[in-house]
């Protein structure tokens, strides 16, 4: 378009409907953001405000008192130990299996029947309510053996498995094919390509996906109700006898009318949030560390 000489070139955005649409969309996005943030901030403030008062070394380590006990007696030590045992066992079972499953889906299975079936089942499993998973483990494991931390770990592992498979799968899909071809062109075997090129390129995302799954599992209550019961003293053996966990403690304490129990429930809730927070930060750090070479 020729510019007539002598005329001021107008590069400002034209007024009118286009500009109005822009304004409306911007306002809507800001409103949506605020709506999302309000409950988040509210939950965080409430939990911190009510939980911080009770947190002390004694609270984190002492045995669990009767629910009628006042707030300054006892703590949630056995629940923290139980959560670490159960979530740890679940992680050891679910994460390697999930990563291997995703590698099969992406690198080996191709579009075969088996791979599609596994992918489909993983999707279905993601949608199974956690309480159903607890019932499942209750019927196949607890009824035959007994309540134990391991039974809880099985239930949590079943919940984590599809999440790990899906997140790893997505990360492996993001690895560009030319990288694989570059490795193949040097005479690498498929196992070699997977181990030395595909996994290192995706490891940051895989680790953070796994940590997110762990954080989710650490907060699950329902599947543990049928599998571990609750105890008041530390059970050092996760493979035998009832155990307890932080979410279970929150559940049993928060449903009580006694102020001491409710205070302990808030304290346990804050502890759980802090654990999840630490895991998220760790996920960020690990992702950043492993992606050092990917820029």
């Amino acid at each position: 378009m020729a510019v007539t000489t002598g005329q001021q070139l107008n590069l400002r955005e034209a007024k009118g409907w286009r500009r109005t649409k822009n304004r409306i969309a911007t306002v809507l996005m800001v409103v949506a953001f605020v709506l999302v943030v309000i409950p988040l901030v509210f939950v965080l403030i409430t939990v911190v405000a009510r939980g911080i008062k009770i947190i002390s070394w004694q609270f984190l380590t002492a045995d669990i008192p009767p629910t009628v006990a006042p707030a300054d007696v006892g703590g949630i030590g056995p629940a923290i130990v139980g959560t670490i045992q159960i979530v740890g066992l679940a992680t050891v079972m679910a994460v390697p299996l999930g990563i291997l499953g995703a590698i099969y889906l992406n690198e080996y299975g191709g579009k075969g029947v088996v791979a599609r079936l596994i992918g489909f089942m993983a999707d279905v499993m993601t949608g199974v309510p956690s309480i159903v998973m607890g019932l499942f483990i209750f019927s196949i494991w607890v009824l035959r053996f007994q309540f134990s931390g391991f039974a809880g770990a099985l239930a949590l592992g079943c919940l984590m498995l599809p999440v790990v498979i899906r997140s790893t799968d997505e990360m492996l899909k993001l690895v560009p094919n030319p990288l694989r071809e570059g490795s193949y062109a040097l005479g690498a075997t498929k196992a070699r390509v997977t181990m030395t090129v595909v996994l290192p390129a995706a490891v940051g995302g895989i680790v953070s996906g796994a940590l997110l799954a762990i954080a989710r599992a650490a907060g699950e209550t329902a599947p543990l109700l049928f599998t571990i019961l609750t105890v008041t003293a530390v059970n050092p053996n996760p493979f035998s006898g009832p155990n307890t966990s932080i979410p279970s403690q929150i559940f049993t304490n928060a449903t009580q009318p006694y102020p001491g129990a409710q205070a302990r429930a808030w304290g346990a809730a804050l502890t759980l949030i802090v654990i999840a927070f630490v895991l998220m930060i760790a996920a960020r750090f690990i992702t950043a560390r492993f992606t050092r070479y990917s820029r």
Partner: protein
Amino acid sequence: MEPEQESVTSLQQPETAAPPQAQPAPEPEAYSTPGSTVFDAENVSCYYGSFRAVTDVSLSIYENEITAFIGPSGCGKTTVLRTLNRMNDLVAGARVEGDVRYRGASLYGKDVSPIAVRRRIGMVFQKPNPFPKSIYDNVAYGPRINGEHNKRKLDEIVEHSLRQAALWDEVKDRLKASGLGLSGGQAQRLCIARTLAVEPDVVLMDEPCSALDPIATGAIEDLMRDIKSRYTIVIVTHNMQQATRVSDRTAFFSVLRNEESDTRTGVLVEYGRTQQIFEDPHDSRTEAYVTGQVG
């Protein structure tokens, strides 16, 4: 096809031994005396599923020469190139008919391992695809997968390969930096160094300069001329000037349109010395293409 396969070169199992060292260089001007052939393709047709991408290609590629494949888009140059080191095996549904012999051995014979093939026949891709590793680890990748872990030897190989690829002086002070931080031309030379590090017999190049500016392109062409005394090079290019500048022989491919079934398939129109193809083409289609009458 062939009754008694006389395997001059064993491709049966991936061995860790270095591929046969290239013969001492015939003088670059050894145009008039054709060397021995490296590849002999006979009636090669390539399919992707039921789609026939290339029909009936027969040609021989000579030792220590640079052979260029030129032709319009979709004429199957790249497909033919990728049949030479079995890269098309990685594409689901890809299939080759006819016979490709590499130094007397049938590449698509029954017991041939594509891994062993690719250790002898390296490939450089259209888009530079350095691994998300350090420059050093990129070059050392191939020797390492071939079982070389001696630090001193690896250092030597890395330096030698980077020197051959004319990249050493630019990166010698930052070998530990990410290979992804290099410019396009440097990254492509890194990929060439990576390919040369396994001392291949043949280097296949799939439009190696299409993503590069003229200066980087010139650097890579110089490099090709430098190394051709030790390697046999096959290059796919869209750039006819490039073919005239670097290649000894040129194969012109074109697209054959089938009006009845409305399908297109690539064919080899003419193959000969580069000078003859560009100055005295025998086929009218070649003439139209090299003189720029049709794109």
